[in-house]
């Protein structure tokens, strides 16, 4: 199996305190890896370290076998590591289509974005700030797709959205993985995310406490609960 993203022993400090402590994980081509954990576990910090938003203090990040640990965020993006941040970071003053065009890589096709989310086609001339929350989330995922990434890191895409929209987004993410992308998905809706995932990680207090298949966690919600809260040792 191709390990598109390989993270080993990653350490990230914030204000001098370790927030991510020696995390090793991978994201593989054609697979969704879901990263779960309670609030404050360090999931978002980990993604920010992976994409280069914040500096790391130790460990390595390799993309297709090449270390990108010293690269800036923009260089990592151009190398194929895309990050869909939490909070639906659309460019509010730009139209939907302009948002899509900002990061469009050579060879990318706008039609791919509209094919993934046909809802955006009728809204292409609308300023992104006027879109609904669900449409904005679709837009940032579609925008990421047009950078022609190999790995997409997606942070809390379902926050504040209606369940029907969340299911729509989950289906789209599954479709991206089936098309050959490696996805690392941070998600609070654990059950929904585990259902579409190929691999699962659980993080607690900056460390991985579960690294394995999603099915055991789906089958035993109590175990997941205990992993979140810390009453059970790592699998």
């Amino acid at each position: 199996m191709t390990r598109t993203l390989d993270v080993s022993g990653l350490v990230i400090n914030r204000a001098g305190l370790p927030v991510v402590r020696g995390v090793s994980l991978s994201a593989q081509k054609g697979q969704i890896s879901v990263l779960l954990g309670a609030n404050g576990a360090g999931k978002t910090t980990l993604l920010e370290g992976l994409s280069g938003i914040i500096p790391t203090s130790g460990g390595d990040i390799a993309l297709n076998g090449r270390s990108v640990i010293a690269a800036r965020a923009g260089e990592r993006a151009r190398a194929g590591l895309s990050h869909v941040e939490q909070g639906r970071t659309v460019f509010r003053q730009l139209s939907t289509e302009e948002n899509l065009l900002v990061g469009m890589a050579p060879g990318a096709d706008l039609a791919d974005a509209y094919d993934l989310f046909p809802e955006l086609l009728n809204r292409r001339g609308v300023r992104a700030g006027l879109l609904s929350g669900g449409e904005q989330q679709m837009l940032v995922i579609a925008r990421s797709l047009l950078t022609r990434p190999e790995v997409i890191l997606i942070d809390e895409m379902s926050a504040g959205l209606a369940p029907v929209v969340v299911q729509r987004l989950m289906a789209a993410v599954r479709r991206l993985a089936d098309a050959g992308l490696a996805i690392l998905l941070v998600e609070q809706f654990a059950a929904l995310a585990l259902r579409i995932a190929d691999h699962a990680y659980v993080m607690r207090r900056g460390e991985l406490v579960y690294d394995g298949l999603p099915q055991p966690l789906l089958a035993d919600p109590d175990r997941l609960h205990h992993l979140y809260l810390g009453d059970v040792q790592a699998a």
Partner: protein
Amino acid sequence: MNALLTSAVAGLTAAGAYALLGVCAVFTFRLVAVVNFTGAAIGTAGTFSMIGFISLGVPLWPAVVLGILVGTLAGALIGLVMTQWFSEATATTKAAVTAALLVGIVALGLRLTGGQSPKEFPTLFPGSAFRLAGVEVTVASVLTVVLALVFTLLADAFLNRTRTGLHLRALSERPMAAELLGVRVRILALLVWAVTGAFTTFALMIIAPQRSPDFMSLSLLVVPALAAALVGAFRSFPLALAGGLTIGIVEGMSSAIDGISQYRGILPFFVILAVLLWSQRGARWDEAR
């Protein structure tokens, strides 16, 4: 009446320069989110460099080009400082940094140019362009106004019709989101600083012979420039253009009125005060209710 008209026309050169500096301030704020206090000082550095090159025996127009190059590099250097160390800072911090840099540039400029002793600046565009209601309108006046207008139109077209313009608009709104999409944000930010450095230098070269030609006075042209930008709410190029032209023309007219002519320098402060009070009217109305 004729005296007023003459003075208004005389104020056109300053008006064009204020407008161009104001539009440059809007350009910088819209694209790199910095209220730039160093704009005029950068232009002043380029203008004094031109004088330096001329004194070294370089002919006028090559010296102009070299001066603009110095202004461009100075702008890029300030941009490098801002993007390297303050890219994630708040707008207030960025403004404070540029204010501090202004003080530093002025101190250095005064030291290198021999204090506040005036220098002689060559008139780049001598002569009269045409007569307006019996008043001579100089080539320099027309050129500064046209330059301001061209910069306004070019900036607007560039931002709305080119891919780099789209990147700049994205960068101005969410620098990190733009960077995560692979946009080369640092290079683009440096480009913005360099371009504004070049334009402000050329504007100051044109206006310098008609102002108090010392480093401090020219650097403080940032005040009318920011007043013009404020008229455009730091967003609208056409309103900043109109603001700069109005301030310059009213300043020129006031020089013909005994009793207030010696106070015409404070006009930009009145404009700043008026715009700020106007912008607060909603809050006051809410409080009153």
